[in-house]
Protein backbone atom coordinates (compact mmCIF):
# COMPACT_ATOMS: atom_id res chain seq x y z
CA UNK A 1 0.00 0.00 0.00
CA UNK A 2 1.30 3.48 -0.87
CA UNK A 3 0.17 6.60 0.98
CA UNK A 4 1.03 10.12 -0.14
CA UNK A 5 1.56 12.98 2.33
CA UNK A 6 1.66 16.62 1.18
CA UNK A 7 4.96 18.50 1.49
CA UNK A 8 4.82 22.16 2.55
CA UNK A 9 6.22 24.89 0.29
CA UNK A 10 8.76 26.05 2.89
CA UNK A 11 10.29 22.67 3.46
CA UNK A 12 13.93 22.00 2.67
CA UNK A 13 14.79 18.91 0.64
CA UNK A 14 18.11 17.08 0.44
CA UNK A 15 19.58 15.35 -2.58
CA UNK A 16 22.68 13.21 -2.32
CA UNK A 17 25.48 13.92 -4.79
CA UNK A 18 27.75 10.94 -4.94
CA UNK A 19 31.49 11.51 -5.14
CA UNK A 20 31.77 10.68 -8.84
CA UNK A 21 34.02 12.62 -11.19
CA UNK A 22 31.86 14.93 -13.25
CA UNK A 23 28.80 14.88 -11.01
CA UNK A 24 30.09 18.12 -9.50
CA UNK A 25 32.99 20.36 -10.41
CA UNK A 26 35.10 22.50 -8.09
CA UNK A 27 36.08 25.56 -10.10
CA UNK A 28 39.25 27.64 -9.89
CA UNK A 29 37.57 30.14 -7.54
CA UNK A 30 36.59 27.22 -5.24
CA UNK A 31 32.91 27.50 -6.12
CA UNK A 32 31.19 24.19 -6.75
CA UNK A 33 29.08 23.60 -9.84
CA UNK A 34 26.71 20.68 -9.61
CA UNK A 35 25.92 18.89 -12.85
CA UNK A 36 22.30 18.83 -13.97
CA UNK A 37 22.84 15.07 -14.31
CA UNK A 38 22.90 14.89 -10.51
CA UNK A 39 19.15 15.49 -10.52
CA UNK A 40 18.15 13.20 -13.36
CA UNK A 41 16.01 10.13 -12.92
CA UNK A 42 14.90 7.59 -15.51
CA UNK A 43 11.28 7.94 -14.41
CA UNK A 44 11.42 11.73 -13.95
CA UNK A 45 10.94 11.22 -10.21
CA UNK A 46 14.27 12.12 -8.58
CA UNK A 47 14.37 11.06 -4.96
CA UNK A 48 14.93 13.61 -2.17
CA UNK A 49 14.85 13.54 1.62
CA UNK A 50 12.71 15.90 3.71
CA UNK A 51 15.17 17.77 5.92
CA UNK A 52 12.76 18.10 8.84
CA UNK A 53 12.48 14.34 9.09
CA UNK A 54 16.27 14.18 9.37
CA UNK A 55 16.43 16.95 12.01
CA UNK A 56 17.94 19.18 9.33
CA UNK A 57 21.07 17.05 9.35
CA UNK A 58 22.30 16.51 5.78
CA UNK A 59 24.71 13.83 6.99
CA UNK A 60 21.74 11.53 7.30
CA UNK A 61 21.23 11.77 3.55
CA UNK A 62 24.78 10.58 2.91
CA UNK A 63 25.43 6.93 2.28
CA UNK A 64 29.16 7.40 2.18
CA UNK A 65 31.18 10.10 3.98
CA UNK A 66 32.47 11.28 0.59
CA UNK A 67 28.93 11.99 -0.64
CA UNK A 68 27.90 15.61 -1.03
CA UNK A 69 24.41 16.82 -0.17
CA UNK A 70 22.61 19.76 -1.75
CA UNK A 71 19.47 21.38 -0.42
CA UNK A 72 16.56 22.87 -2.31
CA UNK A 73 13.31 24.43 -1.16
CA UNK A 74 9.99 22.86 -2.13
CA UNK A 75 8.58 26.18 -3.34
CA UNK A 76 11.45 26.61 -5.79
CA UNK A 77 10.84 23.16 -7.18
CA UNK A 78 7.13 23.88 -7.65
CA UNK A 79 7.92 27.19 -9.33
CA UNK A 80 9.33 25.21 -12.27
CA UNK A 81 6.17 25.27 -14.34
CA UNK A 82 5.21 24.91 -17.99
CA UNK A 83 7.93 22.37 -18.72
CA UNK A 84 7.20 20.73 -22.04
CA UNK A 85 9.04 18.45 -24.43
CA UNK A 86 8.86 19.33 -28.11
CA UNK A 87 9.59 17.21 -31.13
CA UNK A 88 11.98 18.44 -33.81
CA UNK A 89 9.15 20.32 -35.48
CA UNK A 90 8.49 22.23 -32.28
CA UNK A 91 5.27 20.39 -31.55
CA UNK A 92 4.60 19.64 -27.88
CA UNK A 93 4.74 15.91 -27.28
CA UNK A 94 4.83 15.87 -23.50
CA UNK A 95 4.00 18.29 -20.67
CA UNK A 96 5.39 17.90 -17.17
CA UNK A 97 3.87 18.81 -13.82
CA UNK A 98 6.53 19.44 -11.20
CA UNK A 99 5.69 18.64 -7.59
CA UNK A 100 7.02 16.97 -4.46
CA UNK A 101 5.37 13.96 -2.90
CA UNK A 102 6.18 12.20 0.31
CA UNK A 103 5.87 8.55 -0.55
CA UNK A 104 5.71 5.81 2.07
CA UNK A 105 6.02 2.35 0.71
Amino acid at each position, binding site marked *: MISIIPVDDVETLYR*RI*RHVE*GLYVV*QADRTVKV*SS*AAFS*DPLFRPSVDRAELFHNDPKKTQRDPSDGVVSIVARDVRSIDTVVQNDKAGKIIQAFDVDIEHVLS
Partner: protein
Amino acid sequence: MPQTAIQSWNNNYRLMDYDPVPRGVSKASGEISERGTRSIEDFYALSAALRRFVFPFALDTVSVVEKGTQEALKDTVAKIQQLLTWDAGWNSYDALAPNPKAVLHAEIWIKKLFLEVADLGRPWIKPNVIADANGDVVFEWWHGKKKLTIYIEDESAEYVQVWGTDIHSEMSNGDAEPSSTCRSLWLWLVS
Protein backbone atom coordinates in the same frame (compact mmCIF):
# COMPACT_ATOMS: atom_id res chain seq x y z
CA MET B 1 54.62 -0.82 -81.64
CA PRO B 2 53.39 0.68 -78.39
CA GLN B 3 53.52 -1.47 -75.35
CA THR B 4 50.34 -1.94 -73.34
CA ALA B 5 50.32 -2.65 -69.66
CA ILE B 6 47.61 -5.00 -68.49
CA GLN B 7 46.31 -4.64 -64.97
CA SER B 8 46.49 -7.76 -62.91
CA TRP B 9 43.30 -8.80 -61.14
CA ASN B 10 45.22 -10.85 -58.68
CA ASN B 11 44.59 -9.15 -55.37
CA ASN B 12 47.87 -10.36 -54.03
CA TYR B 13 49.76 -8.47 -56.69
CA ARG B 14 50.54 -4.98 -55.47
CA LEU B 15 50.25 -2.48 -58.31
CA MET B 16 51.31 0.36 -56.07
CA ASP B 17 53.53 0.44 -53.07
CA TYR B 18 53.17 3.13 -50.46
CA ASP B 19 55.75 4.01 -47.91
CA PRO B 20 55.04 6.73 -45.37
CA VAL B 21 57.79 9.23 -44.73
CA PRO B 22 60.20 7.57 -42.30
CA ARG B 23 60.70 9.47 -39.12
CA GLY B 24 64.02 10.38 -37.64
CA VAL B 25 66.16 8.16 -39.83
CA SER B 26 67.93 10.81 -41.84
CA LYS B 27 68.48 14.53 -42.07
CA ALA B 28 66.37 14.71 -45.23
CA SER B 29 63.49 12.99 -43.58
CA GLY B 30 63.62 15.41 -40.68
CA GLU B 31 63.63 18.39 -43.02
CA ILE B 32 60.69 17.10 -45.01
CA SER B 33 58.76 16.39 -41.87
CA GLU B 34 59.60 19.80 -40.42
CA ARG B 35 58.59 21.63 -43.60
CA GLY B 36 55.35 19.71 -43.82
CA THR B 37 54.49 20.43 -40.22
CA ARG B 38 55.36 24.10 -40.67
CA SER B 39 53.08 24.42 -43.69
CA ILE B 40 50.25 22.84 -41.72
CA GLU B 41 50.92 25.22 -38.86
CA ASP B 42 50.65 28.10 -41.30
CA PHE B 43 47.42 26.69 -42.68
CA TYR B 44 45.90 26.61 -39.21
CA ALA B 45 47.59 29.78 -38.01
CA LEU B 46 44.23 31.45 -37.37
CA SER B 47 42.82 28.53 -35.48
CA ALA B 48 43.43 29.09 -31.79
CA ALA B 49 42.19 25.64 -30.87
CA LEU B 50 44.32 23.60 -33.25
CA ARG B 51 47.38 25.85 -33.20
CA ARG B 52 48.31 24.53 -29.77
CA PHE B 53 48.20 20.93 -30.84
CA VAL B 54 49.77 20.62 -34.30
CA PHE B 55 53.38 21.30 -33.33
CA PRO B 56 54.53 18.02 -31.83
CA PHE B 57 53.62 15.74 -34.70
CA ALA B 58 55.69 14.41 -37.56
CA LEU B 59 54.04 13.57 -40.84
CA ASP B 60 52.41 10.20 -40.79
CA THR B 61 49.65 8.25 -42.47
CA VAL B 62 47.07 9.76 -40.11
CA SER B 63 46.38 13.39 -40.89
CA VAL B 64 47.85 16.03 -38.66
CA VAL B 65 44.39 17.48 -38.09
CA GLU B 66 43.20 14.12 -36.86
CA LYS B 67 46.20 13.81 -34.56
CA GLY B 68 45.71 17.33 -33.28
CA THR B 69 42.08 16.55 -32.53
CA GLN B 70 43.01 13.32 -30.79
CA GLU B 71 45.59 15.08 -28.65
CA ALA B 72 43.31 17.96 -27.72
CA LEU B 73 40.46 15.62 -26.82
CA LYS B 74 42.54 12.88 -25.22
CA ASP B 75 41.32 13.58 -21.68
CA THR B 76 37.74 14.14 -22.75
CA VAL B 77 37.56 10.96 -24.81
CA ALA B 78 39.11 8.99 -21.94
CA LYS B 79 36.38 10.29 -19.63
CA ILE B 80 33.71 9.40 -22.18
CA GLN B 81 35.04 5.86 -22.52
CA GLN B 82 35.32 5.53 -18.75
CA LEU B 83 31.52 5.81 -18.61
CA LEU B 84 31.29 2.34 -20.12
CA THR B 85 32.67 0.90 -16.89
CA TRP B 86 29.81 2.26 -14.80
CA ASP B 87 27.06 -0.06 -13.65
CA ALA B 88 23.41 0.75 -13.08
CA GLY B 89 22.94 2.69 -9.86
CA TRP B 90 26.26 4.51 -10.24
CA ASN B 91 24.73 7.71 -8.80
CA SER B 92 23.56 5.83 -5.65
CA TYR B 93 19.98 6.23 -6.87
CA ASP B 94 18.29 4.52 -9.82
CA ALA B 95 20.53 5.57 -12.71
CA LEU B 96 20.76 3.29 -15.71
CA ALA B 97 24.20 2.24 -16.91
CA PRO B 98 25.52 4.52 -19.66
CA ASN B 99 24.30 3.45 -23.09
CA PRO B 100 27.24 2.25 -25.27
CA LYS B 101 25.60 3.70 -28.40
CA ALA B 102 25.25 7.08 -26.69
CA VAL B 103 28.90 6.88 -25.63
CA LEU B 104 29.99 6.23 -29.22
CA HIS B 105 27.80 9.05 -30.48
CA ALA B 106 29.25 11.36 -27.81
CA GLU B 107 32.79 10.72 -29.06
CA ILE B 108 31.79 11.54 -32.62
CA TRP B 109 29.83 14.62 -31.58
CA ILE B 110 32.57 16.14 -29.43
CA LYS B 111 35.13 15.69 -32.24
CA LYS B 112 32.76 17.41 -34.63
CA LEU B 113 32.29 20.29 -32.19
CA PHE B 114 36.05 20.61 -31.68
CA LEU B 115 36.64 20.94 -35.42
CA GLU B 116 33.87 23.53 -35.71
CA VAL B 117 35.47 25.52 -32.88
CA ALA B 118 38.88 25.20 -34.55
CA ASP B 119 37.38 26.43 -37.80
CA LEU B 120 35.92 29.41 -35.97
CA GLY B 121 39.37 30.19 -34.56
CA ARG B 122 38.00 30.27 -31.02
CA PRO B 123 39.63 28.75 -27.93
CA TRP B 124 38.58 25.29 -26.84
CA ILE B 125 37.24 24.72 -23.35
CA LYS B 126 37.25 21.16 -22.05
CA PRO B 127 33.75 20.02 -21.11
CA ASN B 128 32.61 18.39 -17.92
CA VAL B 129 31.76 14.82 -18.89
CA ILE B 130 29.12 12.84 -17.06
CA ALA B 131 26.26 10.44 -17.74
CA ASP B 132 22.71 11.07 -16.69
CA ALA B 133 20.31 8.64 -15.10
CA ASN B 134 18.83 7.71 -18.49
CA GLY B 135 22.15 6.39 -19.79
CA ASP B 136 22.81 9.44 -21.96
CA VAL B 137 26.13 11.26 -22.06
CA VAL B 138 26.15 14.84 -20.80
CA PHE B 139 28.65 17.57 -21.68
CA GLU B 140 28.62 20.77 -19.65
CA TRP B 141 30.46 24.06 -19.87
CA TRP B 142 30.25 26.91 -17.39
CA HIS B 143 31.51 30.28 -18.61
CA GLY B 144 30.69 33.24 -16.41
CA LYS B 145 26.93 33.28 -15.96
CA LYS B 146 26.41 31.06 -18.96
CA LYS B 147 25.97 27.34 -18.88
CA LEU B 148 25.78 25.09 -21.91
CA THR B 149 24.62 21.49 -21.49
CA ILE B 150 24.53 18.88 -24.25
CA TYR B 151 22.61 15.64 -23.83
CA ILE B 152 23.83 12.93 -26.20
CA GLU B 153 21.54 9.99 -26.85
CA ASP B 154 22.30 7.18 -29.28
CA GLU B 155 20.81 9.02 -32.25
CA SER B 156 20.30 12.61 -31.16
CA ALA B 157 21.96 15.50 -29.39
CA GLU B 158 20.04 18.18 -27.54
CA TYR B 159 21.32 21.41 -26.01
CA VAL B 160 20.15 23.52 -23.09
CA GLN B 161 21.66 26.97 -22.74
CA VAL B 162 21.15 28.89 -19.52
CA TRP B 163 22.08 32.49 -18.76
CA GLY B 164 19.91 33.13 -15.69
CA THR B 165 17.39 31.52 -13.40
CA ASP B 166 14.17 32.41 -15.20
CA ILE B 167 13.01 29.28 -16.99
CA HIS B 168 10.88 31.35 -19.40
CA SER B 169 13.28 34.07 -20.48
CA GLU B 170 16.79 32.92 -19.61
CA MET B 171 16.93 29.37 -20.90
CA SER B 172 16.68 27.83 -24.32
CA ASN B 173 16.95 24.35 -25.80
CA GLY B 174 17.00 22.58 -29.15
CA ASP B 175 18.69 20.17 -31.54
CA ALA B 176 22.49 20.21 -31.17
CA GLU B 177 23.30 18.15 -34.26
CA PRO B 178 23.50 20.83 -37.00
CA SER B 179 26.97 22.31 -37.48
CA SER B 180 25.48 25.80 -37.64
CA THR B 181 23.92 25.28 -34.21
CA CYS B 182 27.21 24.02 -32.76
CA ARG B 183 28.94 27.14 -34.02
CA SER B 184 26.25 29.46 -32.69
CA LEU B 185 26.27 27.79 -29.30
CA TRP B 186 30.04 28.10 -29.00
CA LEU B 187 30.10 31.74 -30.06
CA TRP B 188 27.40 32.41 -27.48
CA LEU B 189 29.29 30.52 -24.76
CA VAL B 190 32.65 32.22 -25.19
CA SER B 191 31.40 35.73 -26.03
